[in-house]
């Protein structure tokens, strides 16, 4: 599919919104206003924005924790996300969960569990449901390079391939799992090689190029939707912040970060839009002010929102509660 001009501008909008919102989370974390942890997708936003923008409305996403772009593209508002980070009642999980541990099936987003690659199996199951019901929907599941070492990654990939399920697997290969570099994570050069063992086609894409991520994901969804089975997509990128915002990532060579800074996905896209005369500078600046306003409004909304009441913590354990006599 050729991306229309509006789509390209939308992609840039989501990249910038993701960046700005997460930058704000980072600041609030350092100010001690966001407690616990704050993980960002800084430098890798093109992956979640790209694969999510390529989905159809009724598809399902099972993201991981560097997929803020997925929540935003699917329609979860910055207000609810900011409130989520501040532990407020108006947050996506009403204070039950923190930060990026978000899910909302009204927007086709399955909740993210910290245990990486668990969502590979869960996303595979959503695809299984679509297959059983004969629906032309797809599921997408995401994890990082470290997550591909877990058993659930392999069990899900195998099950999906055996049954030719309409699921697309994304790997955000940002070269570090917390502090562990790729070479201590796997003995192969490309994560995509893992797909070969399951008889599954794979693609390697520039994870900092949102158009490329979008296009490859879209093709994979089309194939899955038409009965062609799963695809594994390795998005090569670089994590530009620490594992979480507490982590200064001293273990990452500075030169590596300098090199990747030049490949920033937002700059990349801006250059593409300007050089191809798709957008004017003023238009892109307009996106900036729109995004700035949205994030500011989100923060005010979240700050003004109430905390949940202590007794709310005892609610919602079961979907079918059992009444005690």
């Amino acid at each position, binding site marked *: 599919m050729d991306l229309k001009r509006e789509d390209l501008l939308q992609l840039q909008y989501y990249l910038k919104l993701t960046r700005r919102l997460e930058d704000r989370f980072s600041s609030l974390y350092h100010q001690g206003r966001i407690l616990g942890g704050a993980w960002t997708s800084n430098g890798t936003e093109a992956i979640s924005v790209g694969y999510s923008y390529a989905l159809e409305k009724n598809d399902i996403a099972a993201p991981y924790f560097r997929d803020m772009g997925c929540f935003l593209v699917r329609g979860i508002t910055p207000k609810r996300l900011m409130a989520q980070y501040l532990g407020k009642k108006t947050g996506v999980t009403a204070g039950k969960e923190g930060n990026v541990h978000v899910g909302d099936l009204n927007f086709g987003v399955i*909740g993210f569990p910290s245990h990486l690659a668990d969502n590979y199996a*869960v996303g595979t199951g959503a*695809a299984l449901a679509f297959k*059983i019901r004969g629906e032309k929907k797809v599921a997408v599941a995401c994890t990082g390079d470290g997550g591909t070492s877990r058993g659930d990654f392999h*069990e899900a990939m195998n*099950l999906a391939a055996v049954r030719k399920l309409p699921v697309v697997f994304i790997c955000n290969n940002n070269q570090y799992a917390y502090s562990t570099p790729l070479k201590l994570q796997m003995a192969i050069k490309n994560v995509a090689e893992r797909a070969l063992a399951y008889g599954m086609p794979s693609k390697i894409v520039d994870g900092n190029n949102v158009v490329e991520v979008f296009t490859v994901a879209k093709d994979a969804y089309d194939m899955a939707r038409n009965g062609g089975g799963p695809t594994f997509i390795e998005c090569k990128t670089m994590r530009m912040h620490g594992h979480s915002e507490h982590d200064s990532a001293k273990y990452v060579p500075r030169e590596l970060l300098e090199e990747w800074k030049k490949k920033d996905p937002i700059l990349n896209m801006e250059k593409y839009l300007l050089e191809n005369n798709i957008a004017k500078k003023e238009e892109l600046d307009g996106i900036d002010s729109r995004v700035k306003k949205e994030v500011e409004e989100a923060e005010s909304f979240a700050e003004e929102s109430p905390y949940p009441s202590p007794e709310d913590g005892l609610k919602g*354990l079961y*979907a079918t509660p059992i*009444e*005690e006599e």
Partner: protein
Amino acid sequence: MKEITYLEAIKQAMDEEMTRDPSVFILGEDVGIYGGAFRATEGFLEKYGEWRILDTPLAESGFTGAAIGAALVGMRPIVEIQFSDFITCAFDQLVTVAAKNHYRWGGTTPIVVRAPCGGNIHGGPFHSQCIEGYFFNVPGLKIVFPSTAYDAKGLLKSAIRDNDPVIYCEHKYLYRRIKDFVPEEDYTVPIGKARIALEGKDISIITYGAMVHTAFEAAQLLKEKEISIEIIDLRTILPLDKKSIFDTVKKTNKVIILHEQTKTGGVGAEVSALINEYCFEYLDAPVIRVAAPDTPVPYSPPLEEAFIPQTKDVVSAIEKMMRY
């Protein structure tokens, strides 16, 4: 009314629910072509086709995770764990994902995990365990454990219709040994409700699963000594039916807790703690737990017999209590 075995009850419940509701499907190892290691799904592949009775790769975590994903988007999967012992491979998906979905972010996860468990079948350490204890400490799960064919069918139907993840413990020793008359029409047994399996007045035995039958044997023997035993069959392990537990304590004032699961930190420990906390004044004797020792389930017949609580163990616990 028709007399059926415990295994037939399980099979019928699945068959009837699959016919009633197209969102119900089964996945697990050898459930399709082979009809299940215990034949619980024999003939299902022919009847429902390979997309509603799925033979999966040997990967409990993967297919349990897949069941969770299918459930989140509107299906009602039944996962068969071939031997409940293998459920440890799916522990993460059940504890991390299934149990917490609804509380964490409102995801509804109506899955049933069938766990054929229990000893007395000479299976050794990895084909004989009772696994309810592993999950008893996990808020968000429900655990049921029927002892009769009637309850096996009714509880499985309730579990399938329930919107939460339910671990359905089915005792392998009972499969073909226990028969009941069950109604031909549709019925369910509620989750969260114990039953009085035998009315009595002197001592209560609170138990579940295959041990309900051991308790009956003990009660029979003690009848001759004019000791009247009340048997409470918990049926649901999580959440416990506290009212039924407290009612029987208040009635008999003496309680034995009996289970096949190992003793330390088991269901009996919690039941005993609840009685201590809420019914202390009603007790005429300390609560006694009769349970398996804290070892793996051994293989050799004399070892296994010594491991699984026997009727004589229950009788001697009761005699001890009567002397108190």
